[in-house]
């Protein structure tokens, strides 16, 4: 096992982690501010990817495709917030899970109806194709590297927004005491719609960015959604910093687990058995990580006591 390969896999894990963060940040904000479990977040991811693929096919511009993904997902988010989600804030989690599960059915089948079952393809932009040589002779894909950069920039932007801007102050106040900020004259329902749209736009962006490395198809949001839930549960629901730590942890565990575990088992088992045992364990690894963390910290790493 060469160190260069290991470095490359670590970067892949980091890239996966920052993309998960884009999903998880929205989920955790929505939960923190509105107390809502939104299973339909994966559908917004899918909407973003389809909008980007459609726009790229029409105009050929990757930048326009990214903008389309942000706008489409935000609009879809505002629409479902105003029609459905808004009625769920005061309900218990069971109703929220069911209603957003119903939204997934509608979104997935609706998309299948419009676009068909065949996957669409979104090409990487030409100026980001190819590889770049990093220090220590590590060859790495420019596109994946730029995903890491975009993810980090978004994370910085979010932290800045939450810490320094007026809307960030309102979001934090909303997490602490919604009645009070309502009484102080902040339009709560507009704030909620805005937070939901922000989360949706981030999910849509993630969908478009990932859509260029994987295929764009119905149901693409669901595996990511579950991983994003794992991330926010590990990090502590409602905490953006927790979501970032959780995302990186899950990204690295998943990617490095798939890479290292089969090799580790090869030291003690026969090759064919080692591959099957190693890969089964690797695909379970993040769930084991989550269960382990919850056992010691039932509210996640950065969750309130």
């Amino acid at each position: 096992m060469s160190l260069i390969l290991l470095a490359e896999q670590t970067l892949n894990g980091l890239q996966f982690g920052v993309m998960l963060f884009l999903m998880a940040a929205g989920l955790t904000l929505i939960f923190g501010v509105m107390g809502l479990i939104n299973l339909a977040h994966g559908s917004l991811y899918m909407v973003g990817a389809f909008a980007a693929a459609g726009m790229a096919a029409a105009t050929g511009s990757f930048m326009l495709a990214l903008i389309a993904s942000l706008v489409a997902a935000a609009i879809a988010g505002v629409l479902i917030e105003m029609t459905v989600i808004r009625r769920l804030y005061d309900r218990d989690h069971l109703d929220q899970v069911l209603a957003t599960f119903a939204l997934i059915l509608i979104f997935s089948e609706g998309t299948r109806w419009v676009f068909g079952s065949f996957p669409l393809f979104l090409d990487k932009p030409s100026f980001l194709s190819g590889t770049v040589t990093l220090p220590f002779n590590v060859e790495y894909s420019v596109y994946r590297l730029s995903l890491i950069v975009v993810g980090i920039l978004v994370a910085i932007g979010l932290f800045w927004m939450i810490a320094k801007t007026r809307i960030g102050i309102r979001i934090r106040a909303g997490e602490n005491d919604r009645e009070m900020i309502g009484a102080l004259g902040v339009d709560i329902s507009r704030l909620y719609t805005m937070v939901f749209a922000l989360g949706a736009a981030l999910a849509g962006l993630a969908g478009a960015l990932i859509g260029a490395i994987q295929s764009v198809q119905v149901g693409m949001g669901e595996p990511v959604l579950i991983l994003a839930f794992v991330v926010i549960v590990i990090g502590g629901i409602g905490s953006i910093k927790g979501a970032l730590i959780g995302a990186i942890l899950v990204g690295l565990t998943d990617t490095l687990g798939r890479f290292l575990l089969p090799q580790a088992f090869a030291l003690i088992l026969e090759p064919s058995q080692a591959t099957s045992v190693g890969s089964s364990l690797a695909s379970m690894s993040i769930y084991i990580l989550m269960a382990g963390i919850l056992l010691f910290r039932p509210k996640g790493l950065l969750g309130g006591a």
Partner: protein
Amino acid sequence: MKKETLLNAVLIALFVGVALAAWIMDEPYLITLATKAAIFAIAGVGLNFALGFGGLVSFGHAVFFGLGGYAMGILAFHAQTYTPILEWPFAINGTRSMPVIWCVAIVVSAVVAVGIGALSLRTNGVYFIMITLAFAQMFYYFAISWPTYGGEDGLSIYVRNEFPGLNTMDPIQYFAICFTLLLLVLFFVHRAAHSSFGLLLRAARQNEERVQAVGHTPFRLYLTAFVISGAITGLAGALFADLNRFVSPTLLSWHTSGEIMIFVILGGVGRVFGPVAGAALFILLEYVLGGLSEFWQIYLGAILLGVVLFARGGLYGLIAGREVAHD
């Protein structure tokens, strides 16, 4: 209360009526649908025991459904290929006997439920929902990547397993088996819900501190409920696998967990017969809407959304009125 009893009777009569009518008209497909509804009802009744009576929102009951399914798959696979499951330290052979398979499914599900329950019950609220989901995903990915029993492709069993004195390949006879089991499960759950344990469990859901103050441990009540709930759903999984003569990781997927939850909600949370109505309605919708359009799940989603938003308490809440405090 009166209305609810009446609705229960209508529901049971409906099941028997549809199956018998289909049998007389020689429509095996309809009998299979009724059987599927009965099996889903058992799964729903199982989940309802934890969710409705104990307030434990488990989003991972697919684990038990899948374990039951794989218990059947693995036992029948070894019987079919004449290979032992285990040679060391003692030999275990496969079997084609349904009662044995059911017992194994129930015991395995119960044992796993003890483990998952004991760990998950350390958390509550959203964390409980998510950790049960995580356990289900763990089993799902394990089933996908473990090649011995078919991995992602699943496992086919050529002949339905045997039940003494009956021809299980005859749809109406298999329906009779599943329906009888459903009735037994309903009877058991009804008795359990009205036992001192059932009352304590509901009391704990409403006010943990008070139950603690009178000297009971909520954790133990919840865990018992979770284990019973998992065992019942495991039985349903074994029956479902035998109905299709096929098991695959799909049984363990989170969609399955969601669907079992839908049976409970459509029917009415916390009513003994609620999931029976929910499962029957689900199968009916699937049948009717599936005939209308290839994209029937859109309509299913819309109906589900309508139920959650506007008809709280599901079918039972709609027809028999909201649950009264004492029943």
